[in-house]
Every structure is written in C-alpha cells, then in structure tokens.
C-alpha cells in the first residue's frame, strides 16, 4: 500500500517546491513617487543632508532622504496640511498629516529635546525604554500614567501603540523596514522616521529641529532656535582656532575590541571643531573602527586626553584592566566619561538632549582640553573620572 504512496510523494514534493518558489516570487514591487511642482519656497538647510522641506501655498512637503541610496531617493515623503479642504488636492503618494500634530509616540530619546525647545512636550503620549529615560518631566508623566511606556525600542508593543491612537509615531529607521514600522503602517499609523543619527556633524543633527518644527507649523521658531544654537557653536569653534592642539583618544574597550570613531563620524567632526588632534581624522569611515588593545597602546598611548571612557573612577578602570595604566591620559588623570547627568536606572541625558545642544557638547570638550578658554563654564554632559568610588573612599 505505501509503495503506491511512495510513488506519489515525489510528485507531491515537486508540487510543494513549485508552491514555495512561486509564493516567494509573487510579491510586487512598490510604486515610486511622482514629482510635484508649484512650491513657493524651500527651507534653507545648511548642514543636514537627510531631509528637505518645501513650502507650497496650502501645504508643506517634508522629505526624509534615504541615506543608504546614492541617488538621494526619499525614504519617506510627508504632506503637511492645515485645512481638510486641501486634502483631495494632495498627491496620492506619501504620508498626509494634519498639522500641528497633537499626539505622538516617540521611540527615540533624541527627539525629546527638540519637542521641549519647540514647547510641544505635551504631545508625547508614548515612549520606549521608560526606565532608561533621563528627562525628569517625562519620568513624572510615566509615573502618573500620562505617558505610556511601550517597551523595547527595537520591538515596541504594537497593541499598546495602536491603543494609544497617536497621530504619528517617531521611530528609528534602519537599512530595512522593521516589523514594528511595517505593522503600524498597515494599521494606518504614519511613521516619522528618525534618521538624524546618520548625520556626521553636530550641527547637522541639531538642524533636524527644523524638521520637527514643520510638523507643528513652527517654521520660524525652528529657524530661530537653530540659528541660536549654530551661533553659539560657531563662536566656540572660532575660539579654539589658535590653540596649540592637544591629541585625543576616544571610545573604550568592549569585549577585547576598542572602538574608536571613524574619521568621518560625528565624534571626529566634534574633535576637529574642538581644536583637538585625532589620529583617524583623515579616515573615511563614518561608523566606528575596531582596534585591538595593542594598536590602541601604540597609536594612542601618548594622547593628551581621553573622552568616552565607560568607567566612573580610576580605581574601577584599573580594576577592569591594568593595561589602561599604560595610557598617558590615565597616568596624567585626563580621562572623561559621559556620565555627568545620569539616573540610577541607566538614564543619561547625553543620549537625550545632547543632539539639541551641540554647543554644550563642544564646550565640554573645549573646557576639558583648554580650560583657560572657558573659565566660567562647568561641564554639561562629561565628567572627569574620580580617583575612587564612594565605596573605596569609606
């Protein structure tokens, strides 16, 4: 009996394979975008490369560009309108959003400060990783239940996000569509992609405040806020032009590999602007460069100053690895971490407000390297390592 069955099975198996291959091929490509004319003006964007804003008479087009594509393709296009009457006239593609936005789930910490500067903190109805947030106002609202914690930022709770009924969700974008964004889009929730982290300079990242401002009809406020930030930053940059440059080491060891910033990265730009000499400043990498400890000792052993150390005290540092003692900045006690504003549960303001305060980030470095230039300034985000921790002091 099963001999017969055996003879039928290869045919069924073939059928199964055909099923699989046709099923995989059946997906259709999504359509492209069409061009629009009649824009009265374009927002001047001086540093950021990741977005454009164009104004028509009755609506605004915000385009978030695709950083992974060479041809500046849009990652997403948003048509922002104020009157419902304009809605039928808008092009069929892209995301339509009525402004000013009234409720937002914000899944990236860096947008808190933009919203705060724009006076729009009350629109936040959901966040992710609540326990890792520094902002006291948001923590208070989570405590009161006015803001919902949606869980892990890499896979936020979809049901709770939908139940919040936010007008839009700010979510980090990666080189592929993630399940969360895909699911929200299918349920009809617009996603505003956070791609400011792909920018390689502090001013470029800060300029994304203009993008946020567009979603609240606060074009002028966005402009003037950014202009003030820019002015402070540039003034400070000019101050260090004549200094005798100090050399810098950055990053720390993670599982035997020391990650230092690439020459085209955010941190390398910051070091350049702070008048620091960084060994990899001519390198083209925009991410991190992994080095073994031997390379770090030979290339950076004689650096003047070290930023981005993960330890809180020298005692902790040496306890972790005695090799750190071979580094000149450790010997000379010129080591800084980014832990000046933190919460016991892991919140760190450096990952929240630094994006909107590049002038403070720069001032921190300048103060540490060239204290005479900023005698009255005290550190915002960075902190010199202490000799001993609280426990050892006792």
């Amino acid at each position, binding site marked *: 009996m099963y001999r017969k069955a055996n003879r039928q099975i290869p045919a069924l198996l073939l059928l199964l394979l055909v099923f699989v291959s046709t099923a995989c091929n059946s997906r259709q490509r999504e359509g492209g975008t069409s061009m629009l004319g009649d824009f009265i003006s374009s927002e001047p964007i001086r540093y950021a490369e990741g977005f454009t804003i164009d104004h028509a008479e009755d609506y605004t087009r915000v385009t978030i560009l695709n950083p992974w594509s060479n041809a500046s393709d849009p990652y997403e296009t948003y048509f922002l309108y104020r009157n419902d009457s304009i809605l039928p006239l808008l092009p069929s593609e892209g995301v339509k959003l009525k402004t000013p936005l009234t409720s937002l789930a914000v899944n990236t910490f860096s947008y808190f400060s933009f919203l705060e500067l724009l006076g729009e903190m009350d629109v936040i109805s959901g966040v992710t990783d609540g326990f890792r947030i520094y902002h006291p106002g948001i923590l208070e609202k989570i405590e009161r239940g006015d803001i919902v914690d949606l869980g892990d930022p890499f896979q936020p709770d979809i049901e709770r996000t*939908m139940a919040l009924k936010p007008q839009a969700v700010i979510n980090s974008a990666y080189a592929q569509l993630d399940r969360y964004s895909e699911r929200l889009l299918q349920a009809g929730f617009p996603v505003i992609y956070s791609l400011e982290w792909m920018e390689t300079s502090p001013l470029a990242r800060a300029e994304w405040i203009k993008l946020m401002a567009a979603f609240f009809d606060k074009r002028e406020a966005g402009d003037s806020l950014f202009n003030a930030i820019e002015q402070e930053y540039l003034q400070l940059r000019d101050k260090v032009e004549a200094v005798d440059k100090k050399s810098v080491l950055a990053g720390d060891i993670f599982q035997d590999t020391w990650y230092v910033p690439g020459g085209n990265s955010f941190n390398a730009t910051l070091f350049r602007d702070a008048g620091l000499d960084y060994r990899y400043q001519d390198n083209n990498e925009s991410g991190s460069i992994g080095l073994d400890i031997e390379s770090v000792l030979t290339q950076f052993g004689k650096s003047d100053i070290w930023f981005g150390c993960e330890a809180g005290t020298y005692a902790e540092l040496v306890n972790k690895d005695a090799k750190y003692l071979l580094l000149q900045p450790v010997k000379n006690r010129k080591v800084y971490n980014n832990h000046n504003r933190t919460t016991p549960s892991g919140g760190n303001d450096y990952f929240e407000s630094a994006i909107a305060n590049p002038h403070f980030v720069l001032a921190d470095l300048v103060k540490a390297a060239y204290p005479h230039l900023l005698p009255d300034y005290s550190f915002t985000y960075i902190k010199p390592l202490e000799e001993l921790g609280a426990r050892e002091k006792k």
Partner: protein
Amino acid sequence: MRKNSSLLFILLIGLVIAAFIADLFTGNAPISLQEAWAALVGSSGDAIVDEIIRNYRFPKAVTAVVAGISLSASGLLMQTLFRNPLAGPDVLGVSAGAGLGVALLTLLSGTVVYPFVSSLGGMAQVIAAIAGAGLVLFLILGVSARIKDSVTILVLGMIFGYVASAVVTVLQSFADPDSLKVFVTWTFGSLGSVTWNKMPLLLAPVIPGIAMVFFLIKPLNSLLLGEHYAASTGLNIKRTRFIIIAIAAIVTGTVTAFTGPIAFVGVVIPHFARSLFGTVNHRTVLPATLLLGSLLMLVCDILSQVPIANRTLPINAVTALFGAPMIVWIVLKRKRL
C-alpha cells in the same frame, strides 16, 4: 483507535479551540471581552480595536497554530527518522541557515546590496531566511541522496548548522550595535509579524507539506523498527528518507523565516504525544502531535503577553522556558528505563 484515545482527541481539539479564543482575547491593549467579541463578529465601533483584534491578534493566533503544527510535525519526523529522542526540526541545520540569511541581510543591508533589499520592502527578511534555509536544505538533500547511513546525515546536518552559526558570529563581530540589535531581535522569535497578506506565503508550503506527512504514516511506523526491517517490508529507504528530510526542512525553514527561531516545541511535543496516548503508532501520534503543538504555541503566546517590566517576553524564550524542564524530564525518564 481505542475509546480513550477518541475522548482524548476530542478533549484536545476542544482545548486548542479554547486556547485559540483565549489568545484572541489576551493582549496588552486595554480591550474588554465585549469589545473584542464585537470586533470579531462585527464591529466594535472603534476602528483601532477592530484592527487589533482582526488584523493583529487573529493572524497572530493562526501563526501560532501553524508554527506549532509545523515545528512539532518536523520534530516527529526527525525523531522517527533518526531514532533519536532529542532530534528536533533544527537538527538539519535549516533554522541556522535561515538565521544566516537574516544575519547577512541585516548586517549587510546598509551596504551595496541596499537597493535590492529596499525593493523587497517588508518581505526582505522572509526572503533572506528562506534563501538561507534553502541553501542548507539543498546541501542536506544532496547529502541524503548519496549517503546510506542516517546517522551520518544527522551529524552533517548539525555540522551545517554549526557552520552557519559560525558565519553569523563572524558577521555579528563586524556589525554596528544597531544592526546587531535588529538581528538579535529577530532571534527572539515573533508570531505577530505575519500579517494577512503574508499568510498565504506561509501557508503555501506548510499545508501541502503537512498533508504529505499523512501519506508517510506507514513508512514512519516501519522506520520505528529500524531501517533494515523497513527495507525488508519493501520500503525504499533512500527515497523515503529524502522525502521526510525535504518536508521537515521546507516546513521548518518556512516557519522560521516568518517567525524567527522557536525553540523546543519540535523536540518536546512528539514525546508528549507518545506518552499521553501511550503509543508510538504514527496514526495516533501524528494527529496528537499536531494538536499538542498548536496548543502549546497558543499557550506560550498567551504567556508571552504577560508584561514583565513593561516588556512582553520573546516567544522563543517562553517556549524554551517551558520546554527545557520537559527535556530534562525526558532525559531522566529514558535513563531510568
């Protein structure tokens, strides 16, 4: 079939239906039973509630059933073929192959392959996983067509799996932290990412695959007595083995592609089915495995909704936490025997 078995089957079917309904009514959105029921049978009057119940929880529950059936059936096939109580759907290396596909996609998608990846949209991960699983599938089928000894196939399958995992580790070591987290999130497993429009793609290989297992009941029963005995009854061992491996690999590969890896279900459920019904006859064990598999996955999905520190638990962890004690029990029971 004995009367007791019939009763047990009726009970199991009732439990699966109950768990399915319970799964539809469980979640983190504050939706009352009445609202959920209204959304199921008509409309709750709230578009978001309708969306959550019909287009999120419903396909998620269906996916739980499909994953439970597929993984436990594959586990049963592997345990019978290799006569090894700890064999599971992943011994052929297809799950690791799927992981390799997704790792390559996630960790390289920001590079030159981006235009291709973006053209695939939300299907990119699934296609990458199917490609990875398919690669291992063809390797293992190629081996099984040439090698006589089943144990050698088992060993080679596991080695393919180890190699795929090793390549994943190398890729991870080069990855930036965000890509790494995206990949790690995939390894958590997820039942909620199969939307209705993806469902046909999941079902297309799984339904005929599982249907074909029913044609294999007799060959599987003869294999229980050893390959020599099975051959003496006129069974073409090589061809049967090829078919069993192909079905298990295709079904496991497809499910893993859509849900991410889900541990333990495939290993544990066939044992449960055998001990519950007190038989090794596949005529009983196969349907029992399918029912128990879907029941376990539905229960695990309900458990994974219990928020701990504002996070839902990864389904892969829930099945493992559930399954690990059972494996210990199986091992100890075998030792006593």
